């Protein structure tokens, strides 16, 4: 798998109501529940749950993209990578200041209930994605 320079990954980042980003990439790094996985062309088929909420993509043009994908999952098969998350968003589309404010607000409400904890996770993922992107 070392010399696959001619190959690339077809990546699709899909939210529940739209396709957020679609393109070709050389590497995708995602954090699953077992830790970070880097996916290169020729990766074995994989289905994993995402944790931590950010996914990093290096496109074929050398651009580096970060996306927030809280509570999503990743599926890899035949050099096609699909990242599915209900609230997926690209890092550079997120306003960092606003995301930080939202995180503060979410933290203030606490993490007592399931919904509140979800909100905090979402806010954290957005802040992280926005920070890495800028």
């Amino acid at each position, binding site marked *: 798998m070392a010399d696959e320079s001619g190959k690339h990954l077809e990546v*699709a980042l*899909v*939210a*529940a*109501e*739209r*396709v957020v980003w679609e393109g070709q990439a050389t590497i995708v790094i995602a954090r*699953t*529940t*077992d830790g970070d*996985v880097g996916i290169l062309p020729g990766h*074995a*088929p*994989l*289905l*994993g*749950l995402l944790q931590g909420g950010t996914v990093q993509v290096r496109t074929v043009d050398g651009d580096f993209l970060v996306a927030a994908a809280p509570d999503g*999952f990743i*599926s890899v*098969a*035949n050099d096609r990578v*699909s990242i*599915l998350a*209900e609230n997926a968003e690209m890092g550079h589309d997120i306003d960092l200041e606003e995301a930080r404010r939202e995180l503060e607000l979410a933290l203030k409400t606490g993490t007592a209930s399931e919904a509140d904890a979800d909100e905090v996770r979402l806010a954290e993922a957005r802040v992280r994605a926005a920070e890495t992107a800028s």
Partner: protein
Amino acid sequence: MPATQRELKDRRNSVSTIKKLTRAMELIAASRIVKAQQRAQAAGPYARELTRAVSAVATFSNVDHPLTTEKPNPKRAAVLLITSDRGQAGAYSSSVIREGERLNQLLREDEKEIVPYLTGRKGIAYYTFRQREIAQSWSGESDAPTFARAREVADALIEAFLTPTEEGGVDEIHIVFTRFVSMLTQKPDVIRLLPLEVVEGEEAPAADDVLPLYEFEPSAEDVLDGLLPKYVASRIHFCMLQAAASELASRQRAMKSATDNAQDLIERLTREYNQVRQSAITQEISEIVGGANALADANAGSE
């Protein structure tokens, strides 16, 4: 007594106001339906990838998940009825409610207790008017359902499904909604949501197009655990989007025929008005002529 000119005129004016209203509603529905279809299309990739992933897990691992296991001897069945928030959509709401009643009848014959879940104000009104118990209901945004709403509904239904029957849980869940076949045809339909029957897409995979052998991270069970609730939410979202498109299509059609009827009515009233007006003029003239003749006769007699 035939209507007077003034009455006819007033009626014609009010009908033309109604026509303007229905025409506007028709146009609004027409423009929204395009958006609804786009939304349904935009939700397609998510649903497709999710279905693919779920069938991959289901095919390559022998995991029994509570959401996919049939309960022996089901006693309580939940019915999610998707209706609209507003009327002016022809038979849309009544036909989906009727389909729901038919399903209820079937379930009752199977000696199952029915637990109704409702979305849309029309369905809620129907049930509250008949003083039936509602397990849970949601209203608002029936013509533009968001995924968050679908998620909310899915969470409530999954929770009910996972609760043991004795504690008020349900054994199966059905959805009654209106399927958008085309702009002209929308059909009320019933699908069973839970326990899940996982089916792969519309077309069966070709012989050489077998699903790849997946690695699971962390494990097949955990992945399935994470995926199935998402899958359920996506199915509900799909049904809601279909229902929304159907609602708008029905509304557009209903408003179009209302506009056409108003136009017919206006023409009829105009004709009637002209007739009344003409006969009034004729009568006036004949009265004048008659009066003049009588005067002339009287004058002729006195000379």
